[in-house]
């Protein structure tokens, strides 16, 4: 029982950056500008978060800086992709490489440390005990006592869903994603919608990065995101761009991550094989989706 509670508690914790990034991914998928740059935007967010938090001894300023930096870089990404017609995968890879290089460079030059930055003058973001639920026996220990961004990420799933399916903007966004030319003909400001989706995604990716660096602990290490941006994208494909199902995918992958530490310690089962599973599952899901499409097409 203790084991299950622990695993579920950490699942919620480690899923949070994935969920936030995956909501950005879901927006980008729906507008048909798949955001490969999430990995890099998160890394920039994580870096800015802890650096500014340490600089001003204020975690909230760190959070703000994380959001602003990721926003600025997603604007660069959007500029190259939307206006300069750079292929979006190429531009995404470039942002990722830039993030990897520039954060490591600045870490060494500005803070004179290689590999890791661990300030001692800041606290992580506050945790929140949910009033009534925290006293419910098992549930309280799983759901309560997480950092604020954990709860915020759940809110974001709801808000993203609302935005996509219940607002005119969401309708426009999906229309642009489905058929750009038709949307243009219908009088939708395509370019504005595309920019807005990428920039919103930038904010979410910045939050995701901040959760990594100042969510539970306050530290930054080189390549801290370590593929989480791509896991988040995998979850987007798992959920086919729908926020709810995408979040479920994130929780599933989060559980793999949470289990991986424990299984390794307990049974000696290879953590690498366990880490492989989410990627393999998504590849299989992608194949199944395509097979279904093909069968439907043949039936017509």
């Amino acid at each position, binding site marked *: 029982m203790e084991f299950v509670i622990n695993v579920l508690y950490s699942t919620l914790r480690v899923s949070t950056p994935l969920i936030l990034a995956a909501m950005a991914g879901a927006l980008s998928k729906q507008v048909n500008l798949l955001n490969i740059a999430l990995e890099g935007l998160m890394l920039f967010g994580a870096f800015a978060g802890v650096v500014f938090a340490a600089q001003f001894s204020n975690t909230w300023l760190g959070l703000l800086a994380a959001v602003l930096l990721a926003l600025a870089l997603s604007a660069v990404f959007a500029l190259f992709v939307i206006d300069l*017609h750079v292929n979006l995968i190429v531009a995404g890879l470039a942002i990722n490489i*830039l993030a990897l290089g520039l954060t*490591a460079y*600045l870490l060494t*030059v500005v803070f004179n440390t290689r590999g890791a930055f661990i300030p001692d003058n800041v606290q992580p973001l506050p945790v929140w005990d949910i009033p009534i639920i925290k006293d419910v026996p098992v549930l309280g220990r799983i759901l309560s006592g997480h950092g604020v961004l954990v709860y915020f990420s759940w809110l974001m799933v709801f808000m993203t869903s609302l935005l996509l399916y219940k607002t005119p903007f969401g309708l426009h966004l999906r229309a642009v994603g489905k058929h750009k030319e038709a949307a243009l003909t219908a009088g939708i400001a395509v370019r504005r919608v595309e920019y807005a989706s990428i920039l919103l995604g930038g904010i979410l990716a910045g939050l995701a990065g901040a959760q990594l660096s100042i969510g539970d602990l306050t530290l930054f290490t080189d390549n801290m995101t370590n593929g989480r941006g791509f896991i988040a994208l995998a979850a987007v494909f798992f959920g086919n761009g729908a926020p709810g199902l995408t979040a479920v995918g994130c929780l599933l992958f989060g559980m793999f991550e949470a289990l991986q530490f424990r299984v390794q310690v307990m049974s000696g089962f290879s953590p690498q094989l366990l880490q492989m599973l989410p*990627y393999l599952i998504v590849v299989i899901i*992608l194949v199944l989706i395509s097979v279904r499409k093909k069968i439907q097409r043949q039936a017509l």
Partner: protein
Amino acid sequence: MLLKKSTPWINQIFEILKMVFTLLVALLMGALVMQLSGKDSMQAYGALFSSALGDSSAIANSLLAATPLIFTGLAAAIAFRAGVFNVGVEGSLYLGAFAAAWAGFTFTSLPGWLLIPLCILVAAAVGGLWSYIPGMMKARLGVDETVTTILLNYVAILYTSYLVNYPFKVPGMANAMSAEVAPAAQLDRFMPGSQFNTGFLIAVAAVIVITFLMKRMNLGFELRSVGDNPVFSKWMGMPTEKIIEKVMFISGLLGGVAGAVQVLGVHYRFAANFSPGFGFTGITIALLACNSPIGVFFAALLFGVLRSGSSTMELFTDVPRDLIRVLEATVIFFAAMEISWNWLRRKRNGIRN
């Protein structure tokens, strides 16, 4: 449409000018980053280029650093040229490297003239087949190859890491790595004090073969045609699915050989997570070279210089070698702006419709 067709000389000159311009922008960007962070950029670049080109052993080390990049650049270029966005060269490289190491420490009784080709062949086959899988999924089911190859990279990297952490782990080693390959499997080194080895000659041979393939063979014509206009090619009766599968196989094959050459020429064993992103730098190189094999060769040499010079730069001027990635990202942005006016824009539209 500058890069395709039987390029008239004026276009070739334009390509070269564009390459030079891109590089200048990248170097300027690097200088800007250094100046803003209080470093002397002239001194840093001076240290970088003099340590990468200063004497014969420095040049040897630059060529050594360029060797895997020539293969991965070719691998990316041939796929891009056919309009297939293979991001999975890194995965093929890992599996190929492990396969070569495995053959090298398993068939230890074979003589070198047999063992080295065998190792490379096994690596080529494994790398090719690995990349054939997303190629097949793309050709037959329409699964987007970019996404699957990115995901499969992680599978390949983690799986090879598993292999040297468990079944093939050498006891007593601090890091996860395989046993050493037989001495007969090790590629000859040209001079003492440098790891520069005959792998470079294999890379040169690969450039020649791929040039010949792209320019003179049926498959080359077909893959360029599919890259320029897949719908037209299909209506002309070309087996476009088969071509995509073949191209993905060749691309992965080159990635596999890159891994083999690193193992047989440099490390003599497979170590988990050994590649600093050779496969991804290959993408940068292909973009910079406008997918031309000869261009890939020179672009790879350049990145070899940057890579090998950067460690000395770090040592003597306190400018971290991570700066090279900033240059790389800039190269990608600016090189891709041009290429997007060609097939990449069509690809984007292709995804849309």
